[in-house]
């Protein structure tokens, strides 16, 4: 069932993103053309094209956020909710499918943006610059050995968990906001800010309680060996993953509970 929900979620959202991606690539190529020709009489169109390019990238970022909010709200908390919640699927399957697809578009947006910029900027000089960078970076990475891969993996996991976490925070806020009959938007924003404040408080509490320990730990690292330092990086990243996972799980459980018990479609 999750697969089917994913299928329709992707169907619903690709109509928005694919055209934007296509447009971005088109303008990337257009800009590349202008830069190659580099003619004075084309100066104005060139500036416009570059501005449009930037606008599209910003637009894609904004759109990713808007679609995350809008899909969740429209499909689950408005009239469409009557259809969604009478489907023979568990409530959390709805959360999962939307979360995964939002993650997908977030990652894709970043990848496509990078490709577009690369396509635009690539020339002899940049390729040479990349070669020089890689010539230094790759051996450095390899010298880390297995740890290097661990850190890389942790990095990827952290990015994914953090993205999912931020998505599900938004879902929790929207669901809470929906409980208010007249001020859904305001209540939702309030909830979102409220979450931020709570997280800040928790972080502050941790830092003040363990501040001393952290400080001593990092000072000792300064004098430690290379491998100890690398181990420290791995450990810190692991803690960050767990921390993000903890809050993410809280928001997920909250959202799921509210959709199951407190849902009241008008």
């Amino acid at each position, binding site marked *: 069932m999750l697969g*089917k929900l994913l299928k329709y979620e992707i169907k619903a959202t690709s*109509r928005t993103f694919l055209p934007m991606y296509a447009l971005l690539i088109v303008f990337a190529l257009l800009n590349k053309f202008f830069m190659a020709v580099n003619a004075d009489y084309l100066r104005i169109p060139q500036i416009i094209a570059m501005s449009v390019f930037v606008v599209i990238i910003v637009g894609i970022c904004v759109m990713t956020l808007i679609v995350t909010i809008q899909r969740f709200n429209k499909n689950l908390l408005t009239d*469409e909710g*009557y259809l969604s919640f*009478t489907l*023979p699927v568990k409530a959390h399957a709805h959360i999962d499918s939307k979360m995964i697809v939002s993650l997908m578009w977030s990652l894709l947006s970043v990848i496509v943006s990078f490709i577009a910029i690369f396509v635009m900027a690539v020339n002899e000089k940049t390729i040479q610059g990349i070669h020089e960078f890689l010539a230094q970076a790759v051996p450095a990475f390899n010298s880390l050995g297995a740890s290097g891969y661990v850190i890389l993996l942790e990095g990827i996991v952290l990015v994914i968990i953090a993205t999912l976490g931020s998505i599900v925070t938004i879902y929790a806020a929207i669901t809470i906001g929906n409980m208010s009959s007249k001020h859904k938007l305001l209540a939702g924003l309030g909830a979102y800010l409220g979450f931020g404040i709570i997280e800040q408080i928790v972080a502050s509490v941790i830092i003040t309680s363990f501040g001393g320990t952290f400080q001593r730990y990092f000072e000792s690292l300064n004098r430690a060996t290379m491998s100890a330092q690398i181990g420290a990086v791995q450990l810190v990243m692991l803690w960050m993953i767990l921390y993000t996972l903890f809050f993410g799980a809280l928001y997920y459980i909250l959202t799921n509970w509210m959709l199951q018990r407190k849902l*009241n479609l008008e």
Partner: protein
Amino acid sequence: MENILECQNLVKFFPGCLALNSVNLTVPRGKIVGLLGPNGSGKSTLIKLANGLITPTSGKILINGMEPGIETKKIVSYLPERTYLNDWMTVNNMIEFFCDFYENFNKQKAYEMLKKLGVDPAQRLKTMSKGTKEKVQLILVMSREAELYLLDEPIGGVDPAARDYILDTIIGNYNENASIIISTHLISDVEKILDGIIFINKGSIVLTSTVDDIREHENKSVDTLFREVFKC
């Protein structure tokens, strides 16, 4: 299970409102039942509970002996009062959607009914009139081979000719294994096809009877009786 729907001391309380007050009710299979009551009587609450959209405050509601959940959603087909279809899809998309999620969806029946009612399956729902959207919704709901159909105002927004077709479809769909609960204000149109009626008011069942019993004992139609019982 002989009774497709059963309510045992069902209570639903919302902040500031006791929507259902210890309701006891059974609906056997093979019946077409009218759920009749004024606005705010608890009709919609009862239907939402049967759908698993909300949960009881206390008491039980059982569909085929089971509490509302994934298994009951498979055998309950619900037509809400509002349009709940995804605007951006075409009718064909919606049919595929229903096929994907419901094993008991009869595609052929759906296309036949669409044709009879003159709806173009390739049309996008966004571009349709309200009345046409409601017809599509009804067709999708009736094309499921479910065991309990919950129809909330199925003929409210359609023209009289379509109304007759819809009522005939409901009759034609009849099988001894399934039951249909119709919640409506248009009682006189719907009376003839009902086996029984339930009058509900302020969260309590006021009366259950068959249509003919009422006509025989009161010498009036259910519609007339309703107006008397619920006079403002």
